[in-house]
């Protein structure tokens, strides 16, 4: 069933791309729901860019299909007004100003020069707009790319590694920017090879390794159960007391435990009753980085690009 045209769904169905004998994307299927921010994650070389380029009609799939709102990208009459995209390895002519770069795209999108200036303001580079793009920093190039993606006021945004080359300030800005766009009801698919870059931003995740899907679901699933770190005068006695109170724990170094609960108050109470002094007590989320690593680097998913020389 084709999705509503004003809330287009992205559907990737059994998508495969082989470059010669090398399978970059391997029978990949997923959907991206409208109105949410979906993180498209995987280590370098996993096949993210290739997938996004197939979705946008730049790379011809070996087999399978990818559609946006039920149709292939190339079949959308005014694509810039439906889907905005910023891809890795897309450049700017170094001798053309940022504003003129956008004006060229505005001509095909059928939007005014005023919209161009509004987008330059939106991404925060109005001062550099008349300078030649050859002198732009990586962060300014990323912002110009986002401005280009937003020109046609699209409902769907496809962003390939938009955080690459941004400093921490820039990453914070990007986070707010994406949140703002999402609050307007837009569908955002954003790729990254670093989970931390997007973990605070995305609603859903889509993790691939070696061209295949390894996990899809809401970000909250990934966080898993909360745990707490407890440092105390007598970890063994505390562990036993916690056990009695129905809280499992495991040793975490010299004088600390990891308790399988996020309820700090309860741990404090148990420690008091057991006469154990607490030196440190804090909640910790699931170790996402570790989880990401396990998902993408487990033996069956070990990065093919880093394989030992044979």
């Amino acid at each position, binding site marked *: 069933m084709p999705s509503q045209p004003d809330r287009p769904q992205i559907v990737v169905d059994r998508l495969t791309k082989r470059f010669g004998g090398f399978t970059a994307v391997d029978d990949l299927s997923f959907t991206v729901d409208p109105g949410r921010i979906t993180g498209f994650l995987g280590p370098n070389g996993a096949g993210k860019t290739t997938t996004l380029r197939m979705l946008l009609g*730049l790379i011809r799939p070996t087999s399978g299909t990818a559609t946006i709102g039920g149709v292939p990208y*190339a079949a959308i009459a005014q694509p810039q007004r439906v889907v905005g995209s910023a891809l890795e*390895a*897309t*450049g700017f*002519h170094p001798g053309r100003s940022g504003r003129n770069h956008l*004006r060229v795209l505005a001509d095909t999108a*059928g939007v005014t020069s005023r919209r161009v200036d509004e987008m330059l303001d939106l991404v925060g580079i109005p001062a550099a707009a008349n300078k030649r793009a050859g002198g732009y920093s990586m962060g300014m190039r990323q912002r110009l790319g986002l401005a280009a993606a937003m020109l046609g006021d699209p409902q769907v945004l496809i962003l390939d590694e938009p955080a690459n080359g941004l400093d921490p300030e820039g990453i914070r800005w990007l986070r707010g920017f994406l949140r703002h766009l999402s609050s307007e009801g837009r569908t955002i698919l954003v790729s990254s090879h670093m989970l931390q870059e997007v973990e605070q931003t995305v609603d859903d995740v889509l993790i691939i390794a070696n061209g295949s899907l390894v996990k899809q679901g809401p970000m909250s699933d990934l966080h898993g159960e909360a745990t707490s770190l407890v440092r105390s005068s007598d970890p063994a006695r505390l562990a036993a007391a916690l056990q009695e109170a129905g809280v499992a724990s495991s040793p975490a170094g010299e004088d600390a435990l990891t308790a399988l609960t996020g309820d700090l108050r309860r741990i404090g109470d148990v420690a008091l009753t057991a006469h154990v002094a607490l030196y440190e007590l804090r909640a910790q989320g699931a170790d996402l980085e570790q989880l990401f690593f396990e998902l993408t680097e487990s033996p069956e998913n070990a990065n093919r690009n880093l394989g030992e020389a044979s």
Partner: protein
Amino acid sequence: MGGAIRAEVRKIFTTRLWWGLLLGLILVSGGVSALFASLVGTTVAGRNPASNPFLIMTEGTAQLIYAGGFVYNLTPLFPLALGVILITQEFRHQTISATFLARPRRVELLLAKVVAVVIIGVVYGIVHDLAAGGFGTLVLAIKGEPTFLGSSATWQTFAISLLTFVLWALLGFGFGLLVRNQLAAVFLALGIAFIAHIALSIVFSILNWTTPPKFLPDNLSVGMLVTHDPTGGAGGASPYFSLWVNAAVFLGYAVVLSGLGSWLLSRRDIS
């Protein structure tokens, strides 16, 4: 389609390439015209009326002067280089992805580019006419020679020059589309148009072949511009095809290269 054409035209006029090349064109076209005009009525190019086109000012001599650097294979290098660079810069600076994202129906996009190349070709042709006409008539007037500005042959050359520029730019565009690597395409195109032309001309004349040289692009374009015998009939048979045969053959080259290049690019992965 209108938006895509506007975008492609804007691309041309928003970098320094077009006027940088245009400055070179003005110097070359104006310079060669002035040089030719200064030879009129002199024996610098020989005393033989059959081989010195400047001995007596004729309609053909005027066409030769106003064709400017075409006769030396220099002027066409500018629209040729322009055509090559306009397409290869999309690959060099990786802007081709954004271009296709904005206009995913690739053949349509390439047609819009062709229209833009035609437009800039006409602009170059007009500027060439102004430079060659301006410097040529200036020198002729100083020397007191007739300028032939009232002759229809002269105005035919001015008009056909626009077509000639368009064809050379399209030839470059098609060539660039096939080669894609900018540096390689520019050097190959200029090398073929300039050096290979001279080498082949020498080979053909040694072999005494008279028809094959007529197919060389430079001769096709000179044959379009200089339709009257500058020696006023003393020079014997024309070394060129007729005007429209020249144009048709040249257009054939441009269409084959651009068509093949477009077809290949419409199937390529852009990664």
